[in-house]
């Protein structure tokens, strides 16, 4: 289990992480979601004791990282796949890591096999493609058979096959009872991978919940309504405080659940041709939530309503 308490990091004038508190449970994949520059990598570096928090603490199984004995056996991490000497072979890279934590040299070949790099084990890491580098990074994370795994944007730059492989892989690790904490700036990606979500924006915690809850919150806000009797429905919607936008073929309604709209239509004897929650705006809704984390509660609904309907989520 990972626990962050009032974690704060300041670089000069820049407040990269701002009073962040959250917990990450074992046996699940927890997504760490936030737009670029939100402070995800900084938080992860602090988890590994690489950057010193300005204030606050982060502990892994109750201990600070520096207090862990042979830390690679407790925490495996892939923060940046490029942190390998380009002239060193994949095997040499893993060998020194293994040696440093008294991990058997046999384990090096095991993890190379797990990530499918056995054949290029003695090749220079500098010649690896991005996907291969990511795999080498994952091999390094798995080396100590750790309880806790941290991955910073592991799917960045991978092809669909690679993404699928990593996604399945993380789920398997969690099924084995491990704590898996993985960052991303794409809600659509996290929706497929993570069961829990810690969402941050501008260094601040926006929410910690299950992925389902967050997705529901991010997308339920708009409902598309088509009806031949909009002139009667509209005043009814206004009365209950919904935000309504007119589009080419109907209305986009925010701030009121679909069920409620149906009931209103019934009361006013309005025929409905369509009543559809807008699932497509997942990524847009997320961007609004995190784009300005401070004013989110005031703005989410109106802004979501202003978005054109049906824009598919951007997937990587």
């Amino acid at each position, binding site marked *: 289990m990972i626990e962050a308490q009032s974690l704060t990091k300041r670089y000069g004038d820049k407040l990269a992480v701002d009073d962040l508190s959250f917990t990450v449970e074992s046996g699940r994949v927890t997504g760490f979601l936030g737009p670029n520059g939100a402070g995800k990598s900084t938080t992860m*570096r602090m988890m*590994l*004791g*690489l*950057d*010193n928090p300005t204030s606050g603490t982060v502990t892994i199984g109750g201990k600070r*990282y*520096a207090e*862990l004995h042979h*830390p*690679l056996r407790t925490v495996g*991490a892939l*923060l*940046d796949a*490029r*942190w*390998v*000497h*380009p*002239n*060193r*072979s994949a095997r*040499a890279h893993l*060998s*020194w*890591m293994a*040696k*440093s*934590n*008294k991990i058997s040299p046999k384990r090096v070949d095991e993890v190379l096999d797990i990530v499918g790099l056995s054949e290029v084990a003695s090749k220079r890491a500098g010649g690896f493609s991005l996907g291969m580098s990511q795999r080498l990074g994952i091999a*390094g994370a798995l080396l100590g058979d750790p309880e806790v795994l941290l991955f910073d944007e592991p799917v960045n730059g991978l092809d669909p096959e690679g993404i699928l492989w990593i996604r399945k892989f993380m789920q398997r690790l969690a099924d084995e009872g491990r704590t898996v904490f993985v960052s991303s700036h794409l809600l659509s990606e996290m929706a497929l991978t993570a069961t829990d979500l810690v969402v941050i924006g501008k260094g601040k915690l926006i929410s910690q919940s299950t992925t389902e809850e967050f997705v529901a919150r991010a997308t339920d806000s708009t409902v598309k309504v088509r009806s031949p009797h909009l002139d009667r429905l509209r005043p009814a919607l206004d009365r209950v405080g919904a935000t309504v936008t007119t589009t080419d073929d109907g209305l986009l309604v925010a701030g009121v659940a679909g069920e409620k709209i149906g009931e209103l239509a019934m009361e006013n004897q309005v025929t409905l041709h369509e009543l559809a929650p807008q699932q497509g705006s997942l990524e847009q809704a997320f961007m609004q939530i995190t784009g300005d984390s401070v004013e989110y509660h005031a703005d989410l609904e109106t802004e979501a309503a202003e978005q054109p309907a049906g824009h598919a989520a951007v997937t990587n």
Partner: protein
Amino acid sequence: MTLLAVERIKLLSTRSPWWCALTALVLTGGFTALVVSQSNAQFPATVSATQYAYSFGMAVIMVLATLAVTTEYRFGTIRTTFQAVPNRAAALAAKATVVALIALVIGEIMAFLSWGMATLIQPEADLALNSTADWINVAGVGPACALAAVVAMAVGILVRHSAGAISLVLIYFLAAENLVTLIPGIGADIFKWLPFNVLHKFVTGDGESAGGATYGQPLSTSTLSPWWALAYFAGFAVVLLAIAITTARKRDA
């Protein structure tokens, strides 16, 4: 011990230390061959003359030592290192030890290679090592290189960028100390206590190995005895390394 093995694997699994070692050997060997083959009755080959080029080799070894740590910063592997060994002081001290040992070995090979070549080129010359000063002048190059490597590595830790750290080390070693003598009045007195001038005193002593000062390397102006000179430089190296490690422990990796 584990950490020493780790640093050894890291250092020797890349190519640059091998290239640096080769460069050091070729440079000093070549230069020595040139100097010794030019010797004649007026300027006879001496033990000191066989080590004429040791400071070139030492410069290359310092580059190696600087790179040993700056490449870790350059490629981000320093973070992997601190992730594996959160005790940064232990990790960096182990690295300094391994770098010093490698520098010691290269330094000894370099010195005895130069001396051996000289005895082959000038079989008649008196190059036998038959005094303490003779021995220190040849075998002392190794320890001198080891300590110089620690200094260079400490600078590497502090500066972190390869180009910056190497320039700083080389400019200081090859030029800056000597420029101090140009300061009117006090320049020469300060120079006496500058670290590399003192280290040179350890290697060359008062010129006994040069058969009367004239037929060997220029001598150091330090007033310390060779062993005190070595201790002085060792102290300098340890203090610099301690400062570097303290800095590395406090800042973000």
